[in-house]
């Protein structure tokens, strides 16, 4: 049997979940032995294979039209979709901006921030992605496996990946299940 193909990507998050993945130290070698690691944001290949992968991992919530595309592409190209970390699972810290309108957040970020000079301007190039309300991944595409945690710790990620690599569905409970 060929090794299962795994791809990952990140959206509205802090990259901390991918850092936590790297935090599994030498066990990453074992993961690479078990799976065929395809595209990730920290390797050369950036998009999951058009021919599809077995497992797709998404970090971060969905906060603009570009994230929507990333999520939809991953969903289309993978068999099992994993939402990794609190932002992907719940919306997380970026979702705090949902308390304000998009206009308010853009004005704060590009005009009112203390470090912005008088010429502050909200970017409006049509090429740019359009910001949206921050959503959990499962609000946009169906998710198969939720791995909460801010970030999920390396042990949990290792457990999830090794279970998936061996064709089992990970069951998160006890010390592997935390939302913080």
């Amino acid at each position, binding site marked *: 049997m060929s090794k299962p193909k795994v791809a990952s990507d990140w959206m509205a998050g802090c990259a901390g979940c991918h850092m936590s993945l790297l935090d599994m130290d030498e066990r990453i070698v074992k993961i690479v032995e078990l799976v065929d690691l395809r595209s990730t944001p920290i390797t050369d290949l950036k998009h999951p294979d058009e021919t599809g992968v077995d497992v797709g991992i998404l970090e971060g919530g969905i906060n603009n039209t570009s994230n929507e595309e990333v999520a939809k592409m991953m969903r289309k190209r993978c068999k099992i979709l994993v939402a990794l970390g609190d932002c992907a*699972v719940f919306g997380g810290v970026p979702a705090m901006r949902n308390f304000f309108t998009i206009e308010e957040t853009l004005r704060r970020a590009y005009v009112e921030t203390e470090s912005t000079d008088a010429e502050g301007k909200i970017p409006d190039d049509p090429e740019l992605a359009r910001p949206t309300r921050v959503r959990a991944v499962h609000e946009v595409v169906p998710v198969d496996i939720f791995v909460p945690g801010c970030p999920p710790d390396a042990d949990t990620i290792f457990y999830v990946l090794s279970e998936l690599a061996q064709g089992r569905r990970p069951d998160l409970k006890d010390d592997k299940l935390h*939302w913080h």
Partner: protein
Amino acid sequence: MINLTIDGQQIEVPEGTTVLNAARKAGIHIPTLCDHPHLKPYGGCRLCMVEIEGFRTLQASCTIPATNNMVVRTTSEQIHKARKFILTLIFSERNHFCPYCQVSGSDCELQNAAYGEGMTHWPLQPNWQPYPMDASHPYFILEHNRCILCRRCIRACSELVGANTLGVEERGAKTFVIADLNVPLGESSCVSCGMCVQVCPTGALIDRRSAYRGQNTTVDHHQTLCVGCSVGCGVDILTRDQQLIRIDGDWDAPINQGVTCKVGRFYPAFDDRERLKAPLLRKNGSLQPVSWEEALAAAAEKIKTAAGDGIAAIVSTRLPLESLVLFRQLFADRLGSEMVTSTEEGSRTAILSRWAEKLGKAFESKIDQIHEADAFFVMGADLINEHEVLGFFIRRRFPEGIKLILVDEDQNRLGDLAHCALIPQKKTGAALLKGLIAAVAKLGQNRVAFNGQPDEEVQKASEACGVASDLLLEAAFQLTNNEKSIIIYDPAVTDDEVMDLIIKLSQTSGAAMISIKGGANALGAAQLGLDKSLKLNGHRLAYIALGDEEPKERLIQQIEKCSNIIVQASYHSRLTAMADVVFPVVNWLEQDGHFINLDGRLQIAARVLKPAESIWTNEAVLSALADKLGTALESEWEKVISQRPSPVSIAA
């Protein structure tokens, strides 16, 4: 007894037990949120749903009483589905950001319930409607985004404290926890006892000082005694790495059963007085840090010069019996000083000790009586501002229809709640009491023969004290018409005549008596005779063992007259600034020892924190001084506390 089966286990429980409590008794876990063991069942959250044979739907186990032959199941696919659904709805209602909530990890009962059901996500996302946060209170914050409307805080505020500050407005999803008629907490009638914070199952009520500094899994718990006043509440002190994190009321403490006031819960954590770190000695007019040896030698020299009548010695009533006994031994017995007293100067206890001696027996009751009484006669005691927990014990019982008769010459906020508030003219308390005794006789309820004409006496008293005779009769009626009555008074506002009349009123009406004593060990100090009124005339030296007490203005003014001042204290104060020698000593968290509370309960306070190396215990300082003076002290408090008759029986 009731016999029922839960998860196949046969259980016998007393009638009236809820299914939830029956399960708990059998060690079967049912998840709960709105339920709290010390609050009445409420049935609000529905998380504790169980299957009961014969019932069409799931039942809330917290409110349904167990009945004979009931067959209950606490786990099934249907139950787990229901629990998950309930949690899903709760999480979708407000905004829970676990990663930065102070209770996330082990202290959040909501999160723990979700973990218990294996929830990896929220099937329904919140709609991110922001809710306000009330940060107007000095000690805690109400964060509505995390509130699950379980109403534990509201129930604690009324059922445990009787403050009734918290309530809800609106209905359904618009329901909101509010203070009074929706005013900011900091401007409300809140008494700052913090019971709401202690019972909150989520992070909605945030204690400003303990938040993010430790969780149940990372702190040490110490069950000990609050030394804020003479009630002697049990407290649960949370520490981490030798730091005070938080103080909770100890649910297992016999006196307060979990309830505590702001003095016990918040004052210590918010105490920002500067700590004394090294012995200080006055050199060329200013206080200089010196070694213990140098400070002790200098103090001993001053004491030797002033020995005998030249020394006035004052000790704090916040110190344990162990310290008080050594203090008395050194200054009264060994150095022969006549003026050895406490910081309270027996202002409350001296008259009680005198009457105990006169009567030859204890005449006051135990705090337990307060929980059984139906009528309260409160005289002079301001239970809103001090000995607050006693006030809570009364206020929380108003829904039961208890009657409060209040006698106070001054404004007393308990007056708003009183069935009859008697406001005598200044210094006419004796006349009022005479009128009440006569009124009891006029009602024919007197248990002691009454000599004279009750009608005339009531009328005469009414004219003397300015309280209408109808009111006197009403008060006498409430005092005698109820099964159990209790007189709670402040001895500081009595004299021998008033004291005599209170005892007579108690005897003729059958009401029990209890008085507030002041400091945590005021009664202990009284038993050791440390209750003289402080009078300085020609004393050359004042020695004050202040402990962690904040010196009163009156004390500072008196001591100012002394040419030599030695202070052992925990904190810098105006008194230490005046001193010639200052010894840094432990504070209440760093000392252990015995205390006698207002109803004679002998309790042990345990050391919670380790003092810094340069800080000594009060006993160590006194013993070292005795050594320098060529004498030795022995702790013998067990023998001495019962040598003098006490107003209330003393027992562990």
